[in-house]
């Protein structure tokens, strides 16, 4: 989070140098980003569920799933979230909702078919941990800051363009090129990428936290380890996911793995989840 704020301050300074109104610009960008992020956060559960075409899980047909969720909610002191099913052959799951009272978890039919009881329990525990740790709130804050940076840099670059590339400075009549301006421009171009990389890093940390919290709930690491191993071996691609929702699923739903089975450098930087092998190794150490 500190890194985010730092980037935001640097961008604000760059904007100040370039168009002479850094603070106001930053505040406006922050306001726009906050409003849009807040709306999406408030409605995060219904948005996420509709995008993934999730349907409520029938309590009789999916009795085992409901039982597992209820048991783990007792263990975690959480109210029971709404349970949904996504009809997709790829094994995956996600959790969403602004706080434990307005939460929902969804599981694919592929996951229900491929996992046994203890593995399913591990996955459900992971998703409940996301709800318990308020990860949706954390990621919304991250997205707000990214959005602020993106809006600010976008507006600034456009304003510079309209000004004919001159650095506007109050009382500055010459067209002396300002060295700070060059650094400012470079920063503006790089900042959105940097912000996104940081958002991905925050996401990875919260995923690891959710893995560890899940084991704290079940007190049974082999369950989740076995589930992650099965996910690693499975290569079906989740079709119900999109770029926007990729970060919520338990496993990276988009293909980005090259032939050697390892992620390329840029994929690693912007990866929303830590690699499965690392997650499994971490859990084994517990």
């Amino acid at each position, binding site marked *: 989070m500190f890194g985010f704020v730092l980037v935001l301050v640097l961008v604000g300074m760059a904007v100040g140098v370039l168009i002479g109104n850094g603070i106001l610009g930053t505040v406006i960008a922050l306001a726009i980003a906050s409003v849009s992020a807040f709306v999406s956060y408030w409605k995060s559960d219904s948005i996420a569920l509709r995008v993934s075409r999730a349907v409520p899980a029938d309590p009789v047909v999916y009795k085992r799933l409901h*039982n597992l969720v*209820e*048991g*783990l909610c*007792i*263990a*975690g*002191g959480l109210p029971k979230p709404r349970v949904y099913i996504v009809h997709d052959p790829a094994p995956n799951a996600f959790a969403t909702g602004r706080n434990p009272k307005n939460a929902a978890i969804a599981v694919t039919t592929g996951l229900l078919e491929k996992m046994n009881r203890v593995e399913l329990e591990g996955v459900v525990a992971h998703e409940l941990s996301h709800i318990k740790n308020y990860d949706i709130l954390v990621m919304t804050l991250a997205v707000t800051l990214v959005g602020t940076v993106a809006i600010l840099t976008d507006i600034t670059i456009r304003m510079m363009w309209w000004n004919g590339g001159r650095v506007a400075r109050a009382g500055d009549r010459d067209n002396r090129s300002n060295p700070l301006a060059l650094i400012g421009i470079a920063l503006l171009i790089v900042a959105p990428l940097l912000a996104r990389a940081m958002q991905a890093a925050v996401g990875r940390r919260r995923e690891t936290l959710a893995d560890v919290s899940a084991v704290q709930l079940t*007190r049974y690491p082999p369950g989740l380890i076995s589930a992650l191993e099965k996910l690693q071996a499975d290569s079906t691609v989740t079709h119900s996911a999109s770029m926007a929702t990729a970060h919520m699923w338990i496993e990276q739903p988009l293909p980005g793995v090259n032939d050697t089975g390892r992620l390329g450098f840029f994929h690693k930087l912007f990866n929303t989840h830590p690699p499965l092998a690392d997650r499994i190794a971490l859990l084994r150490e517990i």
Partner: protein
Amino acid sequence: MNALWIVLVVVVLLVVWVVLSYNRLISRRNEVDNAWSQIDVQLKRRLDLIPNLVETVKGYAAFEKSALEAVIDARSKAMSAAPNPAAQGAADVGLTGALRQLFALSEAYPDLKANTNFLSLQEELQNTESRVAFARQFYNDAVERYNNSTQSFPGVIFAKSFNFADREYLEVEAAAAVPPSVKF
């Protein structure tokens, strides 16, 4: 004049700090009480399932009477146990053992095993056992959080004067760690 303001601010900050610590102790203690009642809810649920089970099994006249009677006995013991964690724990261990014996013996009666009533009751009981285990886990976690508050700074300063006693953990009896011997 300045010194007076500083003293005032310090006093206000101290009071706020004490209030926050006290409130945290209260909420943690309430969490422990809530967790304890939750175990009760799950245990009662299990006790409620047993009469059904007994009725279903009774129909199979050849079934071992002693195992059935053991379950009924254990149930009444559990219902009349004193409401402290230790006594309840002991009664519960007895009930778990008796139930396990019953289900192990049912393996020898294929008709009983095929009875859908019996199967669904068995699943419900297993499910409830799982919930009891989770409720106990949550209780112990809540006790840990509460004891942490009373034992560490700043709770340790005024815990005694405000009547915040440490709570005891739920422990598994040594008897429960030994699997019940099943005699056919």
